[in-house]
């Protein structure tokens, strides 16, 4: 009765799964065109070689590596944030976690493919297995990204099981899929207990893995002795940047999906407000790291380092550098520090700005160090080619496609957790509050007040 009623309440969440509008086909078509073109470009790259890119000597890494770092950074939106929120028992997390986890899974797959796209000899990838050298930071990456990918797909899947069971029970097609994926879920207390334990274990595991992922990505650069790369704070700096861009990406996705799937009822101003304050904090943190990183360089004044430094601050890369600074700091701080502008629209602008800014940061880390060799070579220039752009846009299209397909088969908001929230959290929160508060309040009283 109550359950049924609640189910009805959340019926809207199943609407897009059960009814396919013509718009869906148009979107799919458009995405396939974009992805098809990207696939064609990549095929040409395999045939002709990396010559189709804008890379050269000495700038031998470009868009693919930049986007690799960028996408993996975005992936921190998800699992990490969702795990932290879960762990800290933030009640407002309930409608958010699923989306965050989906972002992670999709973006991680895309990001993880980028180093392969970047290989000159993708056909020899197997060499990594047969004769991989664990001393190479690249191998550390392969390892930790695979671990993160495994953990986060499971972490996405587990909380999905009860929802799949609901879909199965509703008779949604394709039945076999839900039948298969629901893994015999019947919502028994025992099952609930196991599921929660599993989620809790993963939750604790996934955080260090996620932190390690972006740390070792930074090590790709930091382990070399190249000016602008060889830095001890690169690990935390990258992690902070990753979470920063992750939150921004999550916010953008939430705003878009809320609009597209009419989730206003679930994603309320308050969710955005909370997350954007987190974004603001990350922005300040980012500034702190950036400041420390460049101040030490400037103060140390080592000639090779300074060449790269000046290239970023006043030289060829200055427009990008200052744009990054504006995007990552000035814009989000101005918008988010002010209550009046910290509205959905403002948050959207700030988030987009951060995502662009963080992409620029990856660009600014990868290219200038390569473009300014220590010896007296002419400085290199790098202009990405059509192929690189199309693979980039293709990757974004794959991301959207992933979301659209996910939304086609699964609810974007964790139905059972919402339900659980409705049923249990008030009493749970009341219980918790009671335990925090100094005076002896009555639990029921609090519960009443909360309602």
């Amino acid at each position, binding site marked *: 009765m109550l359950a049924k009623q609640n189910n009805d309440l959340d019926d809207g969440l199943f609407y897009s799964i059960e009814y396919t509008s013509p718009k869906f086909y148009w979107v799919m078509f458009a995405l396939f065109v974009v992805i098809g073109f990207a696939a064609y470009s990549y095929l040409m790259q*395999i*045939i*002709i*070689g990396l*010559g189709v890119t804008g890379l050269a000597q000495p700038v031998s890494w470009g868009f693919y590596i930049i986007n690799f770092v960028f996408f993996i950074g975005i992936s921190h939106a998800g699992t990490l944030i969702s795990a932290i929120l879960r762990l800290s028992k933030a009640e407002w997390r309930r409608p958010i976690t699923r989306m965050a986890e989906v972002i992670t899974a999709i973006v991680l797959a895309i990001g993880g493919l980028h180093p392969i796209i970047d290989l000159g*000899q993708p*056909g*020899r990838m197997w060499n990594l297995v047969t004769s991989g050298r664990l001393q190479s930071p690249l191998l550390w990456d392969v390892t930790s990204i695979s671990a993160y990918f495994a953990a986060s797909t499971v972490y996405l899947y587990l909380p999905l099981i009860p929802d799949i069971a609901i879909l199965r029970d509703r008779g949604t097609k394709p039945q076999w899929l839900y039948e298969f994926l629901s893994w015999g879920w019947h919502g028994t207390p025992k099952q609930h207990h196991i599921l929660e334990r599993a989620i809790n274990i993963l939750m604790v595991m996934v955080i260090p893995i996620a932190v390690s992922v972006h740390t070792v990505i930074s090590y790709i650069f930091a382990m070399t002795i190249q000016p602008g790369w060889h830095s001890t704070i690169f690990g935390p700096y990258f992690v902070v940047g990753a979470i920063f861009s992750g939150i921004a990406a999550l916010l953008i996705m939430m705003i878009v999906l809320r609009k597209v799937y009419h989730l206003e009822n679930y994603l309320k101003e308050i969710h955005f407000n909370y997350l954007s304050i987190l974004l603001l904090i990350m922005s300040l943190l980012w500034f702190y790291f950036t400041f420390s990183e460049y101040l030490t360089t400037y103060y140390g004044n080592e000639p090779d380092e300074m060449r790269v430094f000046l290239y970023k601050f006043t030289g060829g890369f200055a427009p990008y550098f200052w744009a990054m600074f504006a995007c990552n700091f000035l814009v989000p701080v101005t918008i988010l520090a002010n209550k009046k502008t910290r509205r959905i629209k403002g948050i959207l602008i700030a988030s987009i700005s951060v995502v662009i800014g963080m992409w620029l940061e990856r660009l600014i880390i990868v290219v200038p160090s390569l473009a300014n060799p220590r010896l007296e070579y*002419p400085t290199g220039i790098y202009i990405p080619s059509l192929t690189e752009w199309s693979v980039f846009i293709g990757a974004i299209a794959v991301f959207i496609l992933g979301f659209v397909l996910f939304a086609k088969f699964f609810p974007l908001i964790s139905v059972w957790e919402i339900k659980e929230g409705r049923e249990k959290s008030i009493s749970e929160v009341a219980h918790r509050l009671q335990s925090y508060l100094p005076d002896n309040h009555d639990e029921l009283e609090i519960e009443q007040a909360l309602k």
Partner: protein
Amino acid sequence: MEISRRDFLRLLGVTATGATVGALGAGTVFSIPEHLFQRISDGPKIESWKTSVCSLCPGGCGIRVRLIDGIPVRITGNPLHPINRGAICPLAEAGIEMLYHPKRLKNPLKRSGARGENKWQEISWEEALQTVSERLNNLFRNNRNNAFHVFSQNYNNYQNYFLEEFMFSFGSENHHVENRIAQWALPVLASQGWNRVPAYDLLNSDCILNFGADVLDTEPSPVRYNQIYGALRNPGNNRRTDIIHFGAQLSRTAAMSSQWIPTRPGTMACLALSIAYIMIRDRSYDKGFVRNSTFGFKDWTDSEGITHKGFESLVTGNYYPERVSKICGVPAEKIVKTARRFAAAEKALAFGGEQAVNSPNGFYTSWAIYCLNALKGNLDKPGGVLFPSPVFEPPVSEKSPAYDFLKRNNFEEIIGNVLAKKPEVADTILFNRFNPVFNMPARKNWHQVLQNIPFIISYTSFIDDTSRFADLVLPAPFFLEDLDLYKTVPSIEFNHLTVQQPVVDPLYNTRGLGDILILLAKQTDLNDFKWKSYEQFVKSNAESIYLSGEGSIISESTDRSWIEFLKRRGWQPFAYSTFDEFWDVLLEKGGWWNPIYPDGNTKRIFRNKSGKFEFFSQTLYDYFSNDKGRAEEEFNLAFVPHYDPPAFLQENKVFPYSLIVFPQLSNYNGTGSRSGLVQELSAIYSREFWNSWVEIDPYTAGEFGLNDGDGIALISATGRIPVRVKIVPTLMPGVLAMPLGQGHEIPGEEKIGQNPMEIVDKEIDSVSGAYSLISTRVRIEKISSELS
């Protein structure tokens, strides 16, 4: 048989495993003759080596070619060869690439389109030679022998002698050899009556004044001079040799010197005479030598009782450093200091490069420079100017006008006559590996000239800027396929001879020049031209060396001191029972040399009337005796070294900058432009690969707001070319410098870079008639498009 590149690589066994990806990206096709292809596929891959000589420039380096199953794969230096001692230069590395170049000419060609259109029809050699001999017979019968002209490249090979003999038999005096190294000889001829290029004993000198001879990049033998400069800078040899380099540009040669003194183009005579001024004023010249062995130093009176000013008073009256400083841009103190350093050195020498000659006042400039050696009294002495004994040359060299250094370099005259439509002047021209449309200033004139010539033959291995205008093209073998002899490189202090041994059979239907001439002689009934084959000519010349018993075939055990030791005791280093034995060893080792320097005898080096070093040249006086009507003062000046301010140095508001063109070792005359190797390495200093650039000083660049890589148009009175800018601190402000060798224009081929000759003015030297390459004035305009 057309074979894909990949097939070939696979046969050579060089394609790496896993190259499948590569296969898709390739797909070009090159042509390799079928018999070679068979050999590559079936051969046992046996390595062998053959010696020969590099003929990509006149440097005369001995080479060893590595062959795999008889197929040449790499050129290396011949370690025994006394010129280059195992080293070569980057241009020679491109030799193999050019041998197999797909644009090589494979058959004789007859023009089928309009002139210059580069459209051809392949014909047989019989038909080709028939056509030529008909024309020659026609001229011969009508007593128009001189209407047959041949233009030859100036390599030190014997083919040019052979051609000379042919021209003698035919009765034409018009064999033209663009031979600027000859002008190293001109001042020596003027002062001493010695008609060869002398040698400069750089290795034993303490102080060297180099007046802009970029010997590391060009004439006379780049590899050798690189070795010499390398050795001079080796502190291990316990000698501190001062090399002072004058020039407008800090060239590679200048960079290897101890000091570079920027000098305004065209003013070096003035500078040299100012150094003479200091030596005379300080009385620090070799007084004994000047008193006993020179003529015209003091004022003198001739047989007609006319008093002539001597060198001393001419110099002291005109060339005081303060005045000279303003002209040539060198601070007066520097002139004084340099002169004193030169005078104080125990062994010192001064020499000027072609660029001293490449000025409208070039002859007097190089003469003025040469006179410093006389003041120093260093002639025929170690560390000074050396005069090696005569080389083995065919007798024709004595009588031929092409080897008369004072015969005016009359290209301009010929051009003038042809343009004036005097067809009797030139009816048929044979360009023997000569490319004036690319290489000569005023190229547009040559276009017109060629349109006015009734019949043009080109003997060449590739269609070039000139042969595209030909009516008949005779395909020449590449030097690796052709037999020849190379004589001593001018300016080298010992005699040597190198065999250009064919290391591979001709790939195509080409014929050596010698054999062509023999057939032509037969068909033209030239009775006194008796040679049976070119090989016979070559061997007979080698035999004369064998018979002389001098010198030795180069070998591991014949360094100079050993040969000298043996000779002193009257022994022969080697004995051969027959000439054939000698010849076989000669081919195996690659050459012969005679390092022994003739013993001192002043009469030997002064071959003129006075038997002395002449500051007033009686040789010139006699030569120009028909000019004697000229005003006395001016006339007198013509026979003494002096500075004649060239017109191009005048203030010029329209064209404010000077343009100099400079050579690069790897692509001097543009011979290497066809090679990808050369294209991807000659710009190693400027990084403008596959392109041209113009060097500009930072100050001038700043005035125009120019950055590296920006485009400008260089505009001279003659033309306009777009080119990229490279800012360097190595130029006199106001002087622009552009490399030679790029910008070939052949219909159907991509133009790579720009040819500075497009805008070089065609000034000539008043005495030698040689073109000046430094007298061009330009202005610049910033441009944004037009550049590839």
